[in-house]
């Protein structure tokens, strides 16, 4: 087969220098960070693959839009630009801007979920599930079984299993199911898409039962690209056309503009029902900001409106996902176990398969991410048991089938050479994988623990409580007593 080379559909306009550190510096840095890559200083990181969220490079057009910010508190023209862009490409008539995606999730959970409700979804996402649980709901995973098998080559591992969905609805009754939460693509499954055919089935099923469908549209453009590439009969369609149809099959969406939409900050909630939108507006003003800015500067709404348009361009999305494929294929060629097929925004290393000598309760993925940083200065993110947290009822650790390390590619930031270095670095760690040791908690926050947790190697001497530093490095300043 002929390999199609691709080149970025842009040239570089502004650069940001990187610092290369020594192994000794990195060993110290990861120890100070409690073996949690979230707690590293970005200055100590060489290639930052922690997340694709808010880390993109904006275009010159977006920066020009930043200069067109209308910072009026109410009725800013940038709000109308954003409203038009969302209406045109996503199709939701009611737009409520929020400072980022979790702001939209917070508002949505508050208006739709009552205590005792049940929310089915195609695999959990960390912040989404916490907001559902805080509103009194219980999340139920209804993704197809293939999603939990990292080796399965199913083209749409993000699909909803209709039988599982039906089981939840039958068990609790449709009135206790306020909506089905559908993510496109599914982050925790490895950036895997769902198919248009599956989404249509979900829509038919929920319509028959009077249940809403809410899309997590964070990476829906990337999902549309996979539909175009993989789904029978979709090959000739435009990305924006597919995206619009996906949204047409839902009642609303939460969006983090920090992913697909190529901005550093911003999100929104899109709804079709006017009465629901009214309730959302009444809440957004309490937590986020007036409904025409939602906690964003005017310029940020303008940058997002332009970013939305750039995100659906075929050249952009081809090179975006092409870069992720480029890295993934190199790793496959080197024999490294990764989640297959390669996802849209990241390559996911299968830590359980790579480090079979580390038991799950010693967090192989957390250990692998720390080891990768020490070896090369590359920062990745754990997406396994640490991210999954504890069951709110039993207090036990949740061990999801997938124990992964995510190499997330920011949009338009790194070059092919950076990907080459990344592939080499992962291979180096893989070759020395038997030397990677497990970790244990020294500090574990109650909610969303992966962000601020601290660890130490399991073979370190056990510390007395008095030595523990729960507040960590961010609290390193000496406390100044109030006069």
């Amino acid at each position: 087969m002929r390999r199609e080379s691709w080149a970025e559909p842009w040239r570089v306009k502004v650069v940001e220098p990187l610092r290369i550190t020594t192994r000794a510096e990195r060993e110290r840095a990861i120890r100070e960070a409690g073996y949690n890559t979230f707690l590293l200083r970005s200055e100590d990181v060489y290639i930052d693959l922690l997340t694709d969220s808010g880390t993109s490079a904006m275009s010159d057009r977006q920066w020009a839009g930043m200069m067109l910010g209308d910072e009026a508190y109410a009725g800013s023209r940038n709000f109308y630009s954003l409203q038009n862009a969302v209406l045109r490409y996503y199709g939701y008539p009611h737009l409520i801007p929020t400072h980022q995606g979790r702001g939209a999730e917070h508002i949505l959970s508050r208006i739709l979920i009552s205590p005792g409700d049940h929310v089915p979804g195609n695999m959990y996402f960390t912040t989404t599930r916490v907001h559902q649980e805080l509103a009194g709901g219980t999340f139920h995973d209804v993704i197809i079984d293939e999603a939990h098998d990292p080796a399965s080559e199913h083209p749409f591992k993000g699909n909803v299993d209709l039988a599982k969905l039906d089981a939840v609805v039958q068990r609790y009754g449709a009135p206790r199911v306020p909506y089905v939460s559908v993510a496109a693509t599914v982050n925790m499954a490895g950036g895997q898409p769902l198919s248009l055919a599956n989404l249509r089935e979900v829509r038919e099923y929920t319509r028959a039962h009077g249940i809403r469908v809410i899309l997590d549209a964070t990476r829906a453009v990337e999902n549309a690209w996979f539909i175009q590439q993989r789904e029978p009969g979709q090959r000739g369609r435009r990305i924006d056309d597919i995206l619009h149809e996906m949204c047409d099959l839902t009642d609303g969406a939460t969006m983090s503009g920090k992913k697909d939409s190529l901005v550093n900050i911003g999100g929104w909630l899109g709804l079709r029902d006017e009465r629901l939108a009214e309730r959302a507006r009444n809440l957004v003003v309490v937590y986020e900001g007036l409904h025409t800015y939602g906690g964003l500067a005017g310029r940020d709404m303008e940058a997002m409106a332009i970013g939305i348009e750039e995100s659906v361009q075929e050249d952009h999305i081809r090179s975006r996902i092409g870069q992720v494929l480029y890295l993934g294929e190199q790793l496959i060629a080197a024999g490294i176990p990764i989640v297959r097929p390669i996802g849209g925004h990241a390559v996911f290393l299968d830590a359980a398969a790579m480090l079979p000598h580390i038991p799950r309760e010693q967090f192989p993925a957390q250990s692998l991410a720390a080891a990768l940083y020490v070896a090369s200065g590359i920062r990745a993110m754990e997406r396994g048991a640490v991210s999954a947290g504890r069951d709110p009822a039993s207090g036990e650790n949740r061990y999801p089938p997938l124990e992964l390390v995510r190499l997330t590619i920011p949009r338009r930031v790194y070059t092919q050479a950076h990907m080459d270095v990344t592939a080499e670095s992962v291979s180096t760690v893989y070759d020395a994988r038997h030397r990677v040791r497990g970790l244990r908690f020294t500090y574990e926050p109650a909610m969303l623990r992966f962000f601020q947790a601290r660890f130490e190697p399991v073979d370190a001497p056990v510390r007395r409580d008095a030595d523990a530093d729960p507040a960590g490095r961010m609290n390193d300043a000496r406390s100044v007593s109030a006069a």
Partner: protein
Amino acid sequence: MRFQTIIEPFRIKTVEPIRQTTVAQRAAALEAAHHNVFLLQAEDVLIDLLTDSGTGAMSVHQWSGMMKGDESYAGARSFAVFERAVRDITGFAHVIPTHQGRAAEHILFSTMVRPGDVVPNNTHFDTTRANVQDRGGLALDLPAAEARDPHVAHPFKGNMDVEALERTLIDNPRRVPLVMITVTNNSEGGQPVSLENVRAVREVCTRHGVPLFIDACRFAENAWFIKTREPGYADCTPHEIARAMFALADGCTMSAKKDGMANIGGFLAMNDPELALRCRTRLVLTEGFPTYGGLAGYDLEAIAVGLHEALDEDYLRYRVRSIAYLGEKLTAGGVPIVTPTGGHALYLDAKRWLPHIPQSQYPAWALSLVLYVEGGIRAAEIGSVMFGLQPDGSERPADLELVRLAFPRRVYTQSHVDYVAEVVLHVGTLADRIRGVRIVQSPPVLRHFTSHFAPVADTLVSR
């Protein structure tokens, strides 16, 4: 010789055109906005004095900071720059960024306030009150007596009633999780709080073992008033005064959209490490990771620069003088305003100006509508629409019926101010013909933002 004219301590680097409209166009726009200026399209506004929040012009130094934004999700160097600036000014050990001020309040209150608690403040601002009530707490206003009369010329009308605070703490043992003091006191006319008053509040708080938090939105303007009005501080820099004020408190909430000179952003800062940890745990739920708190890296940079620019003496002198200049023109024209003029806004006293409109017909709201139709000026009501709705759903008239002309920082010139004075004086000639309004539709909280109104008569101004 020493020249008397105070000029803007900057020149203009970037401009934003504004659009002229006719009275007929504005009347139609207001109709479409359901007689609520918050619902107007900003394009239809000529001079936007709705708020000084997030509407300022950034400096070249702030914009260059924007280009240096480190957008790393965790541990960004922009956070280190931001943290350093906040610590340098407040002295607080723990700095937690938030997307804006109300989010800092939300985090603080949801961590500290339980249902049935009482939170005293010199005067709560609207979002602060909403956030306390949202937690099932009682937001108790304890302004000093002199604040209640808009026409008394006391230098520190923002002060808190220290005796009333003491009584509150005695009457509600263990029900007061924190005391807040707002500088400057926005709801009472942007009036400053003296350092002496903050010190007295601190003593009461210490005696009762209750932490004191400052709502620091306009800390720099307040520092300027202390420098120019309070004996003993004339030779201190605003930075030194700010440090002295923060040193009396255990923490602060801040909207960087005011004296942070930024278009978005805020923070929460405190000394208690255990409280900081609990706040950060809440932060990741609704705001973002602790080193960005829901802001882009570029915003953190812009705020870090802006916080220091806000303390510049030439800037503060120009800032406060602009408001006083408008106040002098209006007073000379017989318009009743809150005196002395405050730090960020000039407040028209609608209760005195429009005595024929009962408070149940929202005289200040009606006045704000007429200002828009006649001159294209957008101003905010601070009266019974904003404060009249009680948590139990009943209606109680506010103490004051004010229209706030809030000045965005570094945005409008003296010519704009002259135009505003001319419009207000013109509206004065219509005063006895202005009619009240009624609420047609309103949400359960923060109703001023989204309610729909209608004039009680056929027109706002009778013919």
